[in-house]
């Protein structure tokens, strides 16, 4: 298959790995922001291909993992209301909240449906006019435009029983927070590919400018990632950090205008609660005044308040997902990893989501290396 095989060529990979090894003279630490990158790095054994001088850390780029416990509790509370259908993407249903999970709520009788496209949630709302259909909107800038498009569609078609609980998050602000925290010294960032398709490369300019950290946007195939690491090593070695795109077939510096427009039409920027990090200012998207009818937070205000007031939020004991999401620790440094916490019985979200760092480390046997 032309569009994939050429990015998985082992001969080219060996050559690139050699070039990285030749370039790299001093130890450096890179963070792959995106969970998809962690996954690909583990799946293709890229950590074994790059020289020992290059250390890779996972970042907070797994949308399921960074969903705050309190937000999950809210979603679960809404799910238990009568006349409600919850729709959402994939693994979020398995993530434990404080006392339950959406999966547990489903087993207890709540109507929870996994959809593969948010447009299907709108269809479910149309097919069930007497029920309230709530979409749990998790994700980054990648999913935000389609969620915006669904809300625009629902307004146009007067689908009045469709709501979105927006837990959408923005990447550049959280990167800034991690760099400000300074808990882990980073030399370079493997920039998120899919997010950058939407927002472009300009929003990352502050990273080299203010923090002297290199930033190269990468695709998700093994050669993409190796090329990105090569560019990062080159920048660090030469002492000239900048923003570069190593994923030209997907990312333009200015991003995708149409997608950005639809986001701006529906959302406004607000603070957001990140699991393991806390409230990050200006890092979330909430539904604006014009589209407030579709805002689940407004449609179910009592419940949101109750979830907040009761202060139920509880993190599992010993779980280091927070540290792992901030790049302070690797999954292997968590005492629960692979023992108490496995994909069958996950303790924290990083083991639940297929994009979570712990799940990737576990599935591809990091301990075997």
């Amino acid at each position, binding site marked *: 298959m032309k569009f994939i095989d050429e990015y998985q060529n082992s001969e080219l990979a060996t050559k690139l790995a050699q070039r990285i090894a030749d370039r790299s003279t001093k130890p450096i630490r890179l963070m792959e922001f995106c969970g998809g990158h962690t996954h690909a790095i583990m799946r*293709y*054994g890229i950590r074994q291909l790059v020289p020992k001088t290059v250390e890779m850390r996972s970042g907070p780029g797994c949308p399921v993992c960074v969903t705050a416990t309190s937000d999950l509790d809210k979603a679960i509370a809404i799910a238990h209301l009568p006349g409600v259908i919850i729709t959402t993407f994939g693994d979020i249903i398995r993530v434990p909240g404080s006392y339950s999970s959406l999966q547990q709520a489903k087993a207890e009788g709540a109507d929870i449906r996994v959809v593969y496209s948010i447009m299907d949630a709108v269809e479910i709302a149309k097919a069930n006019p007497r029920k309230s259909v709530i979409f749990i909107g998790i*994700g980054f800038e990648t999913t935000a435009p389609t969620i915006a498009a669904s809300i625009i569609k629902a307004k146009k078609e007067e689908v009045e029983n469709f709501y979105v609980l927006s837990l959408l998050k923005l990447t550049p602000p959280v990167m800034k927070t991690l760099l400000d925290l300074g808990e882990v010294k980073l030399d370079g960032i493997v920039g998120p590919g899919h997010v950058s398709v939407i927002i472009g490369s300009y929003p990352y300019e502050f990273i080299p400018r203010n923090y002297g950290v290199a930033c190269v946007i990468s695709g998700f195939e093994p050669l993409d990632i190796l090329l990105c690491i090569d560019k990062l090593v080159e920048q660090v070695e030469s002492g000239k950090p900048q923003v570069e795109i190593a994923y030209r077939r997907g990312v333009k510096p200015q991003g995708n205008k149409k997608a950005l427009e639809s986001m701006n039409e529906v959302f406004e920027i607000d603070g957001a609660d990140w699991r393991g990090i806390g409230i990050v200012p200006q890092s979330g998207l909430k539904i604006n005044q014009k589209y407030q009818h579709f805002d689940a937070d407004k449609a179910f205000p009592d419940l949101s308040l109750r979830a907040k007031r009761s202060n139920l939020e509880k993190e599992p004991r010993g779980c280091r997902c927070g540290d792992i999401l901030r790049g302070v620790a690797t999954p292997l440094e968590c005492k629960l990893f692979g023992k108490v916490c496995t994909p069958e019985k996950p303790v924290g979200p990083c083991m639940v989501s297929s994009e979570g760092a712990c799940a990737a480390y576990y599935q591809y*046997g990091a301990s075997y290396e």
Partner: protein
Amino acid sequence: MNDTILLAHGSGGKLSHELVEKRFLPFLTNPMLNKLDDSAIFEANGRLAFTTDSYVVNPIFFPGGDIGKLAICGTVNDLSMSGAKPLYLSLSAIIEEGFSLKELERVVQSIEAVAKEAEVSIITGDTKVVNHGQADKLFINTSGIGIIPAEVDISGANAKDGDKIILSGTIGDHGIAIMSQREGLRFSVPVESDCAPLNKLVAQMLEASLKIHCLRDPTRGGLATTLNEFAEQSKVGIVIQEDKIPIEEGVKAACELLGFDPIYVANEGKLVAIVEPNDADKILAQMKQNTCGKDAAIIGEVISEHPGRVIMKTKLGPSRIVDMLSGELLPRIC
């Protein structure tokens, strides 16, 4: 309302008899079944293999097959994987009230066709009808009996150091075909389920060599799960090579799109064999003669190191662990 299943079809009275006699018997006819006695009676000599499986697939019709074909192939294949020659099957249908008789007929015709192809007879059966909403259209259970030839000794615990691992063809076709039809995932892929009876392929393999140690059809959980079962049961290590595993382009594309690893996606017409190294080429050549084995390939070998573990050499060279599937396959978000 003559065209749908009514609760009365399950009453045991006239309509029940009519259902069996008009909708099942004409297609599945054979002397043992036609008697309609409480049990089917047959003679058998030698070691018998006996297996059962239930089928609740949704949707019941999918590209490359339907629930009926699946129910016959599944049980025929389970028998075949112990080296048995499948002979007789039972067929039990649990039907939801309101199910279309036309669709039922399509399913039964498909059962007829695949039973003929596999040369097995359905010699006993049952039908039940449940209230609307208590079953999803149609559930089928089949059990089967087969005879194992005297010299055959196949078990998941028989893999030995040095054995070769043969995969009978492309992986992931069934899982992707089903997924492409599910509600909420309407993408069109030119992928058909590989659903097929494998008993003739196994018979040909056993003709080529009796030194087949393990056989299994990698259904739910995919190739990765089957290999892990072998490694655990036989207490051996397994090494496979990613670039030797045949995968259809459509399956590859769908997996990339959804974030699936094809080694975890279900198959219904494939087998994995662990065989004596010296006979591997002979067995492989024989397999390639059969349509179900035309893409067969040696994908790896059994080693004594790291017992219980499956390692894959990735396309890029490094190795990684291949674990069993845990939980459900869910598409990625980001």
